């Protein structure tokens, strides 16, 4: 019995091939989109976590003014803490780039080689992989650094330079101008001896024994003859786990896209199935009347869409985990961050998401729909009876027939129209998610470039009170603000109230708890003038509360501006204390005094990097979103037009002309799409805008997601274009059917 019944399946597939193909495509693309984005993020996150044991990643590092005496190290390691020196010196490469040279590490922050072998010979060097790529270096090539010729013996990466920043204050990675390399102990010793002492940096990396970061820092601070320059824990180190931190946003966007796509699956499949079942109503009734059991009918109707959903899920999952999915999505991370080639990971939840969820949704929706249908009598199904609510018996007093008909049609198709519009909202959310990401990144790039008025920013390693000629000295502190569990940096900049600033448009009031907040804080946290803002000094474990007295349009990161005198008083600094200088021209400050120099060009470059890194995800979201939108429109419109096919054929029989048919039956759909578009674009935009702050919870940046008017016009125009194309496709199909066929089918 089932076997005979199931012979229909292939025929059904053939007869409705276009629709099953559309359903298949929608699921493949949805699953591909989510697995591509989230899978690439998981690859980096899980890879970094797993690699920690292999590369013996540090728990933290500190820099000191002079090398630690052996007895100090001995005292600090009695509790099992392991400390290894990671001394380095910056040399100039043959193409004028800066190369930071390290000796081969022993048991911490080990180099993981992609190719080649560790440096053993004096003339051998291992280069960081992205620097090597940017400088076209391969294993076996020769490269001169600091006037010394080296043969590239290996290419790899280290965990403490996952983000190859020259300093912690560097705005972005720039492998064209900075890289790291590793030489043998003997070679490093030789280099060090050939250079003046002050150019070497004395950094130690540690792995904690039976102690804490704070205790170690305490012990170091209390040690005699130790001048601690910096102490950075694993969590606070910008160079460590940069990639894993960066992909968190991708993962969140991917997961939200996943939920949207899941809702879309459930929604489209339910509409699809419901429509199929309605079309088959009399067949179901006949089979039911002939004694076929409910269970058999359910199994019969569930099997085809479920198999299609399963195959699509498998195809989407395979595509998502393939080089076209994860491979493409991970590339921007690999281009920017220096991380080893992690082994492919297949998180169970993603596999379940891709392979199990689509058929399960499909089967469930089918079960519920058919079960509901079969609760009716076989006779009612045979007669193809419609429930009274389907026709909403409203008496209309409209004289104009065309208008009357259009209104009737609108009332009749209300459910289909709502279905269509809801489908539009869900798919538009995926597209808007992609556009928002592009808009955010491009705005961050633009604001960073436009609002940075200085050309040079000098941060002092050793604070001074003398401001070099041509510079504007100020006092800068970094505090933190909690954003959904992430502690994000907020820069506090002191402004001289009398002189004002050439570079920052802010007029703070005097007072230790009064500050001007920047526009980024307003956009992200909704602060306004008069609001209280709590900022944290994590190192000192202290909170500061400020009242916002004004808003500055400066949008580079999170910044607050204080009266410099009040700021010095608040943080216990002396009068005239400065630790930063801004200028239009290069000031020639002694490099030994400086912690970092940042140019406007570097800020521009780093801002552009932010956008570049997001391009693959943005392109994938928008393009997959557009295709999914087209497919969903096709499926939904097919339902709407299917429901009108009989009516269209009937009035064709009466002699209605194509133009008249359009105005009676099809223009109503255009109206639904036109009005629906006007409603759904702002609705989808509003929903995604509300969700968006949580995607960038770990990024300190402005959040201006407003679209220019032509974006809205473009999206709206595209919706209408897609509608017209889909409509043409479907209506031409109706036109090919002769009225006689329709009548025969009906009878």
């Amino acid at each position, binding site marked *: 019995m089932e076997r005979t019944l199931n012979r229909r399946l292939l025929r059904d597939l053939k007869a409705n091939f276009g629709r099953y193909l559309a359903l298949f495509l929608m699921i493949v693309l949805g699953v591909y989109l989510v697995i591509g984005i989230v899978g690439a993020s998981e690859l980096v996150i899980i890879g970094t976590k797993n690699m920690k044991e292999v590369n013996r990643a540090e728990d933290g590092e500190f820099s000191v003014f002079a090398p630690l005496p052996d007895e100090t190290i001995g005292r600090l390691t009695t509790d099992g803490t392991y400390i290894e020196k990671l001394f380095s010196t910056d040399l100039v490469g043959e193409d004028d780039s800066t190369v930071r040279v390290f000796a081969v590490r022993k048991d911490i922050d080990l180099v993981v080689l992609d190719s080649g072998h560790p440096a053993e010979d004096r003339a051998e060097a291992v280069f960081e992989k992205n620097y090597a790529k940017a400088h076209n270096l391969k294993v076996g090539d020769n490269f001169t650094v600091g006037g010394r010729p080296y043969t590239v013996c290996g290419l790899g990466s280290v965990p403490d330079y996952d983000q190859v920043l020259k300093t912690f204050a560097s705005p972005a990675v720039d492998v064209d101008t900075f890289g790291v390399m590793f030489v043998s102990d003997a070679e490093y010793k030789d280099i060090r001896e050939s250079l003046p002492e002050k150019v070497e940096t004395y950094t130690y990396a540690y792995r904690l024994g039976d102690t804490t970061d704070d205790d170690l820092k305490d012990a170091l601070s209390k040690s005699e003859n130790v001048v601690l320059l910096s102490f950075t824990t694993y969590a606070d180190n910008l160079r460590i786990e940069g990639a894993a931190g960066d992909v968190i946003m991708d993962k969140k966007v991917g997961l939200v896209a996943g939920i949207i796509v899941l809702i879309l699956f459930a929604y489209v499949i339910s509409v699809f199935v419901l429509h199929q079942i309605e079309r088959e109503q009399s067949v179901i009734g006949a089979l039911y009347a002939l004694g076929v059991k409910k269970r058999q009918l359910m199994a019969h109707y569930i099997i085809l869409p479920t198999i299609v959903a399963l195959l699509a899920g498998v195809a989407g999952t395979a595509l998502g985990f393939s080089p076209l999915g994860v491979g493409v999505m991970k590339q921007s991370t690999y281009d920017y961050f220096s991380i080893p080639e992690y082994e492919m990971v297949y998180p169970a939840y993603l596999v379940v998401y891709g392979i199990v969820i689509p058929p399960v949704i499909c089967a469930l929706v089918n079960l519920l729909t058919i079960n509901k249908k079969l609760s009716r009598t076989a006779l009612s199904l045979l007669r193809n009876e*419609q429930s009274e609510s389907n026709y909403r018996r409203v008496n209309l007093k409209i004289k104009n*027939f065309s208008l009357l008909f259009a209104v009737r049609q609108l009332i009749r198709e209300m459910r289909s129209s709502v279905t269509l519009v809801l489908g539009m909202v869900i798919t538009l959310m995926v597209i808007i998610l992609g556009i928002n990401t592009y808009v955010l990144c491009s705005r961050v790039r633009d604001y960073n470039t436009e609002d940075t008025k200085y050309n040079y920013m000098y941060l002092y390693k050793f604070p001074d009170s003398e401001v070099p000629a041509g510079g504007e000295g100020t006092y800068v502190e970094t505090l933190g603000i909690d954003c959904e569990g992430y502690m994000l940096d907020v820069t506090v900049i002191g402004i001289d109230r009398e002189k004002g600033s050439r570079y920052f448009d802010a007029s703070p009031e005097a007072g230790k708890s009064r500050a001007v907040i920047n526009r980024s804080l307003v956009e992200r946290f909704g602060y306004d003038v008069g609001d209280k803002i709590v900022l944290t000094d994590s190192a000192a474990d202290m909170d500061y509360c400020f009242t916002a007295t004004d808003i500055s349009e400066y949008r580079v990161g999170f910044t607050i501006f204080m009266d410099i005198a009040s700021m010095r008083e608040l943080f216990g600094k002396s009068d005239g204390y400065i630790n930063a200088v801004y200028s239009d021209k290069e000031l020639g400050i002694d490099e030994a005094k400086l912690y970092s120099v940042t140019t406007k060009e570097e800020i521009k470059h780093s801002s552009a990097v932010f956008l570049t890194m997001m391009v693959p995800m943005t392109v994938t979201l928008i393009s997959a979103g557009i295709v999914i939108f087209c497919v969903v429109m096709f499926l939904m419109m097919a339902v709407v037009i299917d429901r009108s096919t009989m009516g269209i054929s009937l009035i064709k*029989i*009466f002699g209605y002309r194509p133009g008249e048919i359009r105005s009676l039956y099809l223009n109503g759909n255009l109206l639904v799409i036109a009005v629906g578009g006007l409603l759904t674009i702002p609705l989808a935009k509003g929903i995604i805008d509300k969700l968006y702050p949580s995607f960038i919870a770990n990024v300190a940046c402005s959040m201006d997601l407003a679209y220019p008017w032509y974006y809205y016009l473009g999206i709206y125009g595209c919706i209408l274009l897609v509608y017209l194309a889909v409509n043409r496709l479907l209506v031409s199909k109706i036109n090919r059917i002769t009225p*006689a066929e329709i009548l025969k089918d009906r009878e």
Partner: protein
Amino acid sequence: MYLQIENLQKSYGKDESFIRVLKGVSTGVERGQMCVIQGTSGSGKSTLLNCVGGLDTIDSGSVKVDGKEIFGLKPAQLSDYRRDNLGFIFQFYNLVPNLTVKENILICRHIAENPLDLDDLLETLGLTEHQNKFPAQLSGGQQQRCAIARALIKNPKLLLCDEPTGALDSSTSRDILVLLEEINRKYNTTMLIVTHNNSIKNMVHKVIRLKDGMIREEYENAVRVPAAELEDL
């Protein structure tokens, strides 16, 4: 001859599923005549009706209505032909379910050049009190009367009826046939009625019996039995 059919051929499918439904049908119907087409299932009677109605294409032959050849007309021309000349009545009524009785009739009045008076027609068909009801609120007979009104409002010269009483009980069938008879008399409408019912042949002017796509019998009734007196409906 108002309707002139010459050597009409029509087939469906190809290769193994090829079937010739009409195998050279030639006949004619005078203006104002009621003509019944009879035959068993698969004899080609509905196909013949559809070809005359321009609802289906013709392989070869000729169909002339009021002297105008419809074979070879383009879809838009066929549409105009139906609009200007024809009315259709179907076995299963094919009313638009979300339109009231009156609105269903208005569908056809909307495209008619010289429509009949709506109120008169509603009165003639006994639908005045039901005009604001929806099809689902009507009985089968009332629905078919609504379908007839919809077909007649255009004042068509040719009325094509495909099993007009096929879904009705005998009493309602008689009412509908009486109505058709009245309309024929009142408006001189030419009617082509496809039916299985053997009694209906007695009320019409002409009878055509099809078998296997060919005319087996064709005659005119010398004496017609009024619809009200038909037996075994």
